[in-house]
């Protein structure tokens, strides 16, 4: 039988792993000691808080509270994605729309197909998975867009000089941004089961679910993540490229 209980003693003893990381930092003079310590404390506090909060929400099983939690996750994901958007105007608004629409569409498809039930213990973790993947993908998309607009500045200018509209001058950059944002999801999907046993599937097996049932959930999750990263980065890229130009269709320096 599975024992899913980790006692306080086990938890405290496992913090030896953090001490090992701190020893490595000290020996190699990485200067990361403070960061490692803060990260560990934050992880403990954040996870405990969210653990108790989720336990409360699951028990409450109230639609409005569940929706509020979904929105909270989406807002946080958008806020963090926007941090990667150096110089892109309205980055928070763009990220919020992209992550929000991407997440809601994925949830809707899963809901309609019957893969997901309207219960907080399913909706909340799935939203977290979708939004965090969309957040990372959008961040990668922003970074690619920034570097491509720097590297390909001359090509963009030449297209504009020929009379191209801003979208025609940016097509290649938008495409590259979406591609680079989707690449990790696609690679992960290709190697799933060969390189890593993903978190959701591992979690279900840990909890005693039969591996053949666990993989069904994992398949749905992989499809969902590819769709969300693609859809969200498409929205964010098509909204973000415009901020590299002014209203006279000139490329800003």
């Amino acid at each position, binding site marked *: 039988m599975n024992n899913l209980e980790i006692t306080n003693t086990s938890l405290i003893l496992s913090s030896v792993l953090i001490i090992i990381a701190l020893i490595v930092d000290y020996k190699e003079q990485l200067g990361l000691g403070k960061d490692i310590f803060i990260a560990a404390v934050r992880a403990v506090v954040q996870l405990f808080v969210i653990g108790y909060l989720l336990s409360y929400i699951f028990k409450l099983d109230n639609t409005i509270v569940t929706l509020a939690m979904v929105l909270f996750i989406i807002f946080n994901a958008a806020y963090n994605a926007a941090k990667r958007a150096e110089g892109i105007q309205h980055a928070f608004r763009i990220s919020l729309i992209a992550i929000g629409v991407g997440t809601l569409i994925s949830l809707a498809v899963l809901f309609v197909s019957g893969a997901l039930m309207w219960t907080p213990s399913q909706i909340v973790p799935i939203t977290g998975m979708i939004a965090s993947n969309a957040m990372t993908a959008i961040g990668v998309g922003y970074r690619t867009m920034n570097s491509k607009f720097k590297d390909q500045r001359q*090509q963009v200018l*030449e297209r*504009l000089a*020929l*009379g191209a*509209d801003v979208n025609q001058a940016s097509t290649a950059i938008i495409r590259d941004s979406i591609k680079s944002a989707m690449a990790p999801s696609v690679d992960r999907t290709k190697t799933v089961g060969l390189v890593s046993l993903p978190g959701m599937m591992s979690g279900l097996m840990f909890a005693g679910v039969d591996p053949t049932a666990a993989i069904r959930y994992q398949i749905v999750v992989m499809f969902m993540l590819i769709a969300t990263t693609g859809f969200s980065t498409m929205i964010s890229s098509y909204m973000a490229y415009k901020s590299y130009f002014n209203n*006279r269709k000139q490329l800003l320096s």
Partner: protein
Amino acid sequence: METAILQAQKLGLEIEGKTILKDIDLSISKGEFVTITGPSGSGKSTLLQLVASMISPTSGDMLYKGKSINTYEPTAYRKEVSYCFQTANLFGETVTENLAFPYEIRKETFDKDRAIEALGSVGLSADYLDKKVTSLSGGEKQRIALIRNVLFLPEVLLLDEVTSALDAENRKAIGKTIRKLNKEKGVTILWVTHNTEEITEANRKIDIVDGQVKE
């Protein structure tokens, strides 16, 4: 009196408190062949970029056919007043991609025969269509960039030292094409150049010194 095709009215540009161009007054008639010369850093290229509406002035105005260029839709304007860069940086993979682009942005089908004819006019064969842009020399790139600008004839062609990095043979080929465009097709030419031979070809010479016109 005929309205000038291009007219600069007290055109000025300041960037971070530094004056790049000051009170430029200039009138260019349709069909003129004008060279713009001056020491490097005097603001010649900047003036061309202002005329091309690739950047906007901080003072004064630029008129095209008697109306401020700000009243034109930028993409429509740039199709009529076409700017050719000093160093051609062809985009995409092949020459065809570059020559098809002017058609693409006009939502027209690529006219291969017309592209081959244009390549011939600058001394390049039809084989060039399939060549990778990375395999081309600087002179070949510049010639392809030039025809990319004139596949659809503009009213005004702005040339920014397009021959400065080229050998005599390439310079001659490009010079010939530009003269032909001016004489036979009536395209107005504004050409920033240091080459004395090219300057004598023009029917008017403008000097830009320290951001101001000395004609």
